[in-house]
């Protein structure tokens, strides 16, 4: 059964990604809020970000 994606944003808080990953996403033009995190607690990992720009 499909699992509801974990919201990547804590309410009122930052996107659930470590600060350097947030910076990387910004540099690469990736919108963190459009990603589904695959890290612990649904956090967005570096791979999630780089995966969003790399041609599939």
């Amino acid at each position, binding site marked *: 059964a499909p699992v509801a994606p974990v919201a990547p944003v804590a309410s009122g*808080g930052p996107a659930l990604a470590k600060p350097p990953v*947030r910076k990387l996403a910004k540099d690469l033009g990736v919108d963190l809020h459009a990603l589904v995190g695959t890290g612990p607690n649904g956090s967005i990992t570096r791979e999630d970000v780089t995966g969003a720009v790399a041609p599939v």
Partner: protein
Amino acid sequence: MSDYDVVILGGGSGGYACALRASQLGLSVALIEKDKVGGTCLHRGCIPTKALLHAAEVADSARESEQFGVIAELAGIDMNGVNSYKDGVVDKLYKGLQGLIKAAKVDYIEGTGKLVAPTTVEVDGRRVTGKNVVLATGSYSKTIPGLDVDGVKVIASEHALRLDRVPKSAVILGGGVIGVEFASAWHSFGTEVTIVEALPRLVAAEDADCSKQVERTFRKRGIKFKTGKPFESVKHTDAGVTVTIAGGETIEAELLLVAVGRGPVTQGIGYEEQGVAMDRGFVLTDERLRTNVAGVFAVGDIVPGMQLAHRGFAQGIFVAEEIGGLNPKPIDEAGIPRVTYCEPEVASVGLTEEKAKEQYGADKIKTYNYNLGGNGKSQILKTQGFVKLVGVVDGPVVGVHMVGSRVGELIGEAQLIYNWEAFPSDVAQLVHMHPTQNEALGEAHLALAGKPLHAHA
């Protein structure tokens, strides 16, 4: 045909960093320098002034040793000794830098260069052509109209760094970075210092709270300053100079140090002739540091913005990578860390409270000011000051401003926080080493995140 991929005019911070990075990327590089590689920063700027300021710290430490139970007496300053210490540091770093340039296989060309075609520089009759040219000719000590710097009684920072004595008294014109640094060092050496500043506060580029704290501590130390008082005139006297400031007040001193800013070195070296667009002598560039002339870049102090060595490094590296095809990210100027090395030190990165409120709206900004009175290590150092955070409500920290002895080293952490757009909670969840001064950064973030530890909410 081009002799080189990159020809760099000027071997200061901006120029040599560009040369080193370009060569790493496999580009052929010529670096043209008329004086010494390292430029202002190494020979007449950052390094010698910070050596002077460290000698000042050693003097203060001896003077105040009794407070710590150490019996020592400050008998005086041996200015020759200070100078040979300072020159020793410069020489060693200069040798190191020459070694790096050599190892990088950069063609180092000694001589005064002139832009004679869009991408050709002429040096002593020799024409050096590059696919790209990088202008990096740096800056010089400015003065104000009618004020003549003679290098003896009316001096600039480069002369101040070569003084063979501690002046009995000095008027320092300008309460910016260079002015307050010399004021602080000389005062520690025993000079009676008066700073004259036209703007309403010292270190006026910093957050207003920083200026207030510096002024408070300067007052306590006995460093005099007159803010909001434009300089009017100077007269040479037998004993030195008499300086008249707005309102007619006069100040007698042995010396007048003119520290009113640095102008770009861009005249008479072909920039205008080749059509390089300039504004008040500064070379205009886009965010990729390109001038309006194809193939011509500019870096460092000749580009409008903060005049800092590491900005020059960053720009030099950027241009090398741009030419090398790496498509680097443009530099966020607000993310460049800034330290003023007077006692107390001032360190900042990001936006001042005022700028942040302009940019985000006053209701979107919250600040927290952690007093170093609650910071164990600062108490041990007997220093006063604060760590001030400027944060966006429910958003990242967009400014960090600090004052106090040795806080300059905290800027390393602060710049990661700013540049990586950390939220207060990102920092607050990490425990800082006890007892350190960087713990004050931790406490400030804890408080801004709503969970103060060693602080009232």
